């Protein structure tokens, strides 16, 4: 019986990690192309608001998730227009995107505060999902979890194996050389930014559709920023993002249980534990492998084609 409880705890860890994995893998691909989008939080919260609105109005979780992704894509397109089209400073534009997204999502979501939906059902594979101890954990999660891990595997394969992924990495390493060889620097970066937006939107959608099935303003609570930090400390390697996200999820659940058990520490302090733990662990991880932990060399630099 206790091991069944243990499995349920682990499942909540995965649930807490999933929005981070989704947002971080999108940002990772964006950054590997040389674009630093600090607006993850803004894209995520827009995704959360519009996903809930879409799902509530249509009654379909799938349509809601698509609405969330489109919201993220729209925000990323705005960012791409500014930073890739007009070569505006990426840091400033990213920060503005977050502030803009936070405000706009509050406005658009105002009519949906206090409404509730049902969580989507979990996957059930006869036989496998009923395995003792691990059946639910591995074969009985909700569909978003599998999408998140699929995206990580896909991104890892795309970046290291495919020719297009190679061109994307080259663009992030040295945009002058890439341009000199005739690679489409701006198009690659714009598409990478859109992918990042879609992932951030989906991460937001997960929050309002599956994690807490309601919408309230500001509910992303800094997860976008954690996702950004995960990408850096994961040394821009996809699978390390998963590691960091799971750690964050684990610490979140631990502190919730600690608060419930009232161990005598202030709740605010305990709420900060996952953020601290994740950053400390990832700093240790990346400092051990400094030689390989190089950022994409052209990250954050605007590219202006000499014509």
């Amino acid at each position: 019986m206790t091991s069944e409880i243990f499995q349920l705890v682990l499942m909540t860890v995965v649930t807490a990690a999933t929005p981070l994995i989704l947002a971080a893998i999108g940002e990772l691909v964006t950054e590997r192309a040389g674009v630093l989008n600090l607006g993850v939080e803004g894209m995520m919260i827009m995704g959360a608001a519009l996903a809930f609105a879409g799902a509530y109005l249509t009654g379909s979780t799938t349509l809601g998730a698509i609405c969330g992704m489109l919201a993220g894509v729209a925000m990323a397109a705005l960012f791409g227009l500014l930073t890739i089209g007009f070569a505006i400073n990426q840091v400033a534009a990213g920060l503005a995107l977050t502030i803009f997204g936070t405000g706009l999502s509050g406005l658009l979501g105002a009519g949906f505060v206090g409404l509730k939906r049902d969580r989507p059902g979990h996957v059930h594979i006869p036989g496998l999902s009923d395995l003792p101890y691990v059946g639910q954990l591995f074969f009985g999660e909700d569909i978003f979890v599998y999408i998140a891990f699929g995206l990580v595997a896909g991104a890892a394969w795309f970046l290291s194996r495919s020719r297009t992924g190679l061109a994307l990495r080259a663009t992030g390493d040295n945009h002058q050389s890439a341009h000199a060889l005739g690679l489409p620097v701006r198009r690659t970066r714009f598409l990478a930014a859109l992918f990042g937006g879609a992932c951030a939107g989906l991460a937001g959608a997960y929050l309002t559709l599956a994690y807490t099935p309601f919408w309230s303003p500001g509910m992303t609570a800094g997860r976008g920023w954690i996702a950004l930090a995960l990408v850096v400390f994961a040394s821009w390697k996809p699978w390390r993002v998963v590691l960091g996200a799971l750690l964050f999820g684990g610490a979140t659940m631990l502190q919730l249980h600690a608060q419930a058990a009232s161990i005598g520490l202030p709740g605010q302090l305990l709420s900060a534990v996952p953020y601290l733990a994740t950053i400390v662990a990832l700093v240790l991880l990346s400092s051990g492998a400094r030689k390989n932990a190089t950022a994409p060399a052209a990250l954050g630099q605007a590219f202006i084609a000499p014509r």
Partner: protein
Amino acid sequence: MIAQQETRATPLLSMRGIVKRFGSFTANDDISLDIHEGEAHALIGENGAGKSTLVKIIYGLLEPTEGEILFRGKPMRLNGPQEARAQGVGMVFQHFSLFDNLTVAENIALVLPGDAPISALRGRILEVAERYRMPLDPDREVWSLSAGERQRIEIARCLLQDPRLIILDEPTSVLTPQEAFALFETLDRLKAEGRALLYISHKLEEVRRLCETATILRLGRKVGSCDPRQESSRSLAALMVGSAINDIQAPSTRAFGGERLTLDNLSLPSQEIHGVDLDGVSLRLRGGEVFGIAGVAGNGQSELFEAVSGERLAESNYTILLDGVSVGLRDITARRGLGAAFVPEERNGHAAAGDFSLTENLILSRHAGAGLTSRGLINFDKARALAQEVIKTFDVRKAGPDPAARTLSGGNLQKFVVGREILSEPKVLVINQPTWGVDAAAAATIRQALVDLAARGASVLLISQDLDELFETCDRIAVMHEGRLSDPRDARNVTREEIGLLMTGDGHGESAHAH
């Protein structure tokens, strides 16, 4: 008869009246030239003559404002380098268009059409490397390779596309004499296969060795063409610059004074990931002497400059002596106070702040001496007067009375930076790559100023990759290789080949790099 002449004379590539304007600036003005199969065609001219612009047009990176290009007699309109490559035009860039964090094979795969897996490409790379005798390891990451190896990647990448015309932009500027020799053997082989070469250089000896035709550009215009084998380097240089270049005037008598700069077994581990550790560097530099440090870039020269200038402190105070005073642990300002001056390699961002005016840039390095400050306030009148003196003495050409440093051309900014230090009459001047990317006239001015400074009793430590420059100005030359400094040689009694061997590490009694 006419038909026969035409088939024989149809050039591989023919440019007709090419004009390229950037806003009001005309980079190429009505340039026409023909390149035939199997021909090595040189494009020579000063910095800013429009050579790079012209080849970027051929490679599809720039669109001409006017004029047309014929390839095998048919008009060629290019929409990007992919189309140039598909037509059979390849290019080897001066500033390599490589990606440091990708492997050799990945760098090459990027430009090849199709989607073959990288593992399949490995064999083709090795085959080309073998055929043209250019050793290459497909799995190494680019950052770990020397300049010569990097260039081989560029060339192999180009050859894998089987080009009919290969453009080479200043290919030997970062190579040792031996590497350059190996490159010429490869180029001869390519020529023999009937491929055409368009060779950009301002090293005239190379042009005379390799090319049958030369087109000379000056300030965006074609000023002539000739057979470089029939010309001397001197006559080519005069065509290129438009006037004769003065030789360096060495002082008739040389008298060396006491020791001014001493490095005693200076070792310093590098802090950079891909840096070079200094390993027991010793030298004694007398007053009145120009001491040259040769070597391929990235063998510890920048680390040595940082240590001698005090940008990084040494581990012991006694490893660096200025006029007999130990300064290993003292900072730049203290060393300047003892009469030393420093000119780093990078003009914009290191020697000068690009957005600062020339006067402000003068203050940056001269604030300690020259009485430019009192009680923490700057005396701008004095600084302005001093800046104008530098500008006048070194003939710095600029727009406006006191423009921002970045608006000056490379040669003029370098003249200002060198002049700023030399007018302080330093006892020791340490200077890194003073004429890199500087036009010939400005380079001659700077070299003359160094020789004159030494004649007045100062010591000059000149770090350079340009062997011509070192032989022209130095009394003694030592070679830096992998952080170690060779014994100094008398510049009049050493050959370029000996220096070249030292640059590859052979003269240090070690085996050459195993490739």
